[in-house]
């Protein structure tokens, strides 16, 4: 058996991504934990806040003053709805990233296996080692892009949940929020809190799409590697037996 050639080390950021690839089970567990935390927050904070807010008549809810149980509950439920969905999707994103990394690891092992078989062939019959497919870098970049978009959505959610959302809802509904005048700060804040979900939710799906694309690209790397190695073996068979 001849010596197996090692692949050259990739540059940044691919060396970092490839270094993280074997950690995929841990990343999947972390992703699952984040979704579990989202469930826990839903059970322990969001549900009680909703329950507290809707525990009395509309008039009582809407005339409650800032600092009251009703207004605090109203703030809590809107704050949680600003960051928890982004947090949950980030957890799902880590799960998808783990799948991509697992497929990447399989592709890497397949390449190594191909080299081992080629190393057992006589030098005059062995095929040259093919270069690393460009799609490997594409799926790695697509994975990073997807996770970064989901992380950006989470950061935006946290910024909203610690800024404009509590600022707006920490007011009496009937006498302050409903009577806000044109060009007032409250009405401008209402514009923000009523519109962010309209673009942030699709942005999350764009992030997920990059991760789905990364999985598809990683699968094409595996499929093409299998096809190419089968082709090389057939060539070897024809040369050796012909």
């Amino acid at each position: 058996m001849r010596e197996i050639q090692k692949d050259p080390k990739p540059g940044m950021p691919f060396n970092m991504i490839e270094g993280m690839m074997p950690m995929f089970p841990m990343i999947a567990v972390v992703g699952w934990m984040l979704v579990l935390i989202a469930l826990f927050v839903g059970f322990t904070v969001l549900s009680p806040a909703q329950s507290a807010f809707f525990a009395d008549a509309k008039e009582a809810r809407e005339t409650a003053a800032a600092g009251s149980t009703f207004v605090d509950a109203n703030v809590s439920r809107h704050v949680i709805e600003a960051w928890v969905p982004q947090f949950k999707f980030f957890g799902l994103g880590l799960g998808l990233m783990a799948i991509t990394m697992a497929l990447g690891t399989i592709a890497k092992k397949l390449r190594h296996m191909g080299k081992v078989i080629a190393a057992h062939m006589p030098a005059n019959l062995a095929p040259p080692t093919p270069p690393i497919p460009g799609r490997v870098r594409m799926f790695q970049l697509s994975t990073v892009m997807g996770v970064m978009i989901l992380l950006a959505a989470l950061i935006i959610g946290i910024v909203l949940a610690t800024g404009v959302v509590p600022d707006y809802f920490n007011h009496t509904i009937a006498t302050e929020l409903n009577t806000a005048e044109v060009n007032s700060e409250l009405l401008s804040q209402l514009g923000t809190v009523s519109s962010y979900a309209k673009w942030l939710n699709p942005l999350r799906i764009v992030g997920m799409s990059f991760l789905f694309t990364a999985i598809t690209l990683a699968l094409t790397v595996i499929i093409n590697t299998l096809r190419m190695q089968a082709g090389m073996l057939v060539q070897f068979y024809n040369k050796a037996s012909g």
Partner: protein
Amino acid sequence: MLNVAPPKSSWQAKVFPVLTAIGWILVMISFVIGLSLSSTASGYFGENTKESRDGAAVGDALLGDLETLTVTPRWLEPLTFLGVASFMVGIALAFSTIPNLLSNRGQVLNVCFPILVKKGE
């Protein structure tokens, strides 16, 4: 009979890239419409008092905005999820090509292995 031919291309291998492309098209359409809706929501809620919003009469632009804001999400979300489903079907079809490839690889290796052993001696 021994099979020493490379694997044949399957229909799944031809269809899954198309489904990925459809997924991207649907997701990007919903993102662009989402941006437009966000702008409408920001204008509707952020530039009009509750009194004017509640008092909008038939034919008023405000009532049109309200209709857009309440109607569009009802079909936009299923459209987005159709995009997500397209990605997932694409992934499933890509996976479905692998068993045949592995089966072919096993057959080819089965034929090549004795030659490898003989030539390696």
